[in-house]
């Protein structure tokens, strides 16, 4: 099964004095995960997204869309990136998800992807 791992976190901790260092450590964690994913031989993909301040949302009300400056949900935690991984089952996907570094507050949402043949 394919799962999408959505990374939502409070990015403010990457500001501040120790922010750069923390970001470096986090990226190193991602590199480790990417290596493990590559070694596994299973199909995967993933991307880091630019900051939430770069987001534009088309917000729909009753099917009528209007452009809106900012991300869809106005919370402290923002969608910052994602992976798409192959796993036998939810436990396998959760195992990959746990390898995503997240030093502050936030969450990793694990969602099965609707298969193409259903």
């Amino acid at each position, binding site marked *: 099964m394919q*799962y999408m791992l959505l990374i939502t976190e409070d990015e403010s901790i990457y500001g501040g004095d120790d922010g750069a260092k923390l970001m470096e450590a986090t990226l190193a964690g991602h590199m480790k995960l990417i290596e493990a994913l590559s070694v596994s031989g299973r199909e995967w993909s993933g991307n880091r997204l630019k900051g939430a301040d770069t987001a534009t949302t088309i917000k729909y009300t009753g099917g009528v869309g209007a452009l809106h400056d900012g991300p869809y949900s106005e919370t402290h935690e923002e969608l910052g990136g994602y992976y798409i991984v192959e796993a*036998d*089952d*939810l*436990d*396998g*996907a*959760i195992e990959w998800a746990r390898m995503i570094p997240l030093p502050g507050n936030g969450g990793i949402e694990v969602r*099965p992807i609707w298969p193409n043949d259903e």
Partner: protein
Amino acid sequence: MIERARSIAEARPRVIAALAVHLRDLDLAEDAFAEAAAKCLELPQTPRNVGGWLLTAARRKAVDAIRRREAEARAAAGSLGVAEQADDMADILKLSEPIADERLRLIFICCHPAIALEARAALALKVICGLPVKEIARVFVTSQQTMFQRITRAKAKVQAAGIAFELPPRKAWGERLEAVLLTLELAYTAAFQDAAGERDDELSSEVERLARMVAELLPEEPEALGLTALILLARSRERARVDGDGAMVPLSQQDTEKWDYPAIEQARRWMDSAAQLGATGPYQVMAAIQLTHARRGFDGDTDWAAIAALYDALMVMRPGAMTAINRAVALAKVQGAACGLEALEGMDAEALQNARPFYAARGELLAQLGQNDAAAQALDRAIALDPARAEMLFLKAKRMEVLGQN
């Protein structure tokens, strides 16, 4: 016939687990089992091996259901995917005998931490024990429809999120086992919360069945044994919890002749096995507290100092309001009511989710100190918090007693 229904209920966890794991579909397994059970009840004679008979019959029902489903799918979308389905069918027909024990797999499916805790308990009681949705709804104080939706949603998540029908690898057991034990604990708490009131034998015996099963399947897990011992100890007092008028009888005043001693003995054996595994935990401590209470049935006396010390340990492992209240009550027995009351005063009653036990304990301790007006006030507050009938009768009697002394 009652005998046969009981055999069917006893065979259920094993048969349903084998079906579910093989079919990889909880609904299909449940439906097939229900049809097979109904057919079994119609037989002129009870089959010699009820479990085997049910499995064979349910397997046939499942194959019929899959064929029907396939025919519908074919009608809808041409003949694609038929070959693959035929392989599945051969697999189902091969389902082995004697029945492989897949109960642990089924427990791990129903109690997966990706399913909400209440839904997990409901799912386990429904699928493994076959408890009717109406019963489960009653225990969790919700409507039948809400409970039905909750269970349906949980089953859909198992399928859609890809919850494994395999046993988790041993290294992943920590979190998974905790989820299983929490589920069992919730089922137990729900089943026993009004056990003093309108007692429900079927439900509490199903929870016991589930607990015994977990202990039997996980003999190397001390906390699983501890929790099962705890549940069994609670069950051992069922007949002593209510007096002739239907009022709750507190543990320390129960007639020990009404306790179930074989159950206490079994609980003790499980706790011994748990202790030998050498890793303590909150469930084992809770069971130890209940076993210390049970000793009154043998010694005629309660070792309150030991109980207070166990509550101290529990407060460290798993702090909580109920533990703090029970600790204060035990402390009162050892060092006097004033001391227990002092321990209670440290708690913020307003912040408690359920303040009833707090006021009941406070009323009791104030009464012991002869502060009858204050005691009656505390009991009034407990009564105002809508206790179950048995507890209500107990609290009201206590209040009368306190006021009578003025």
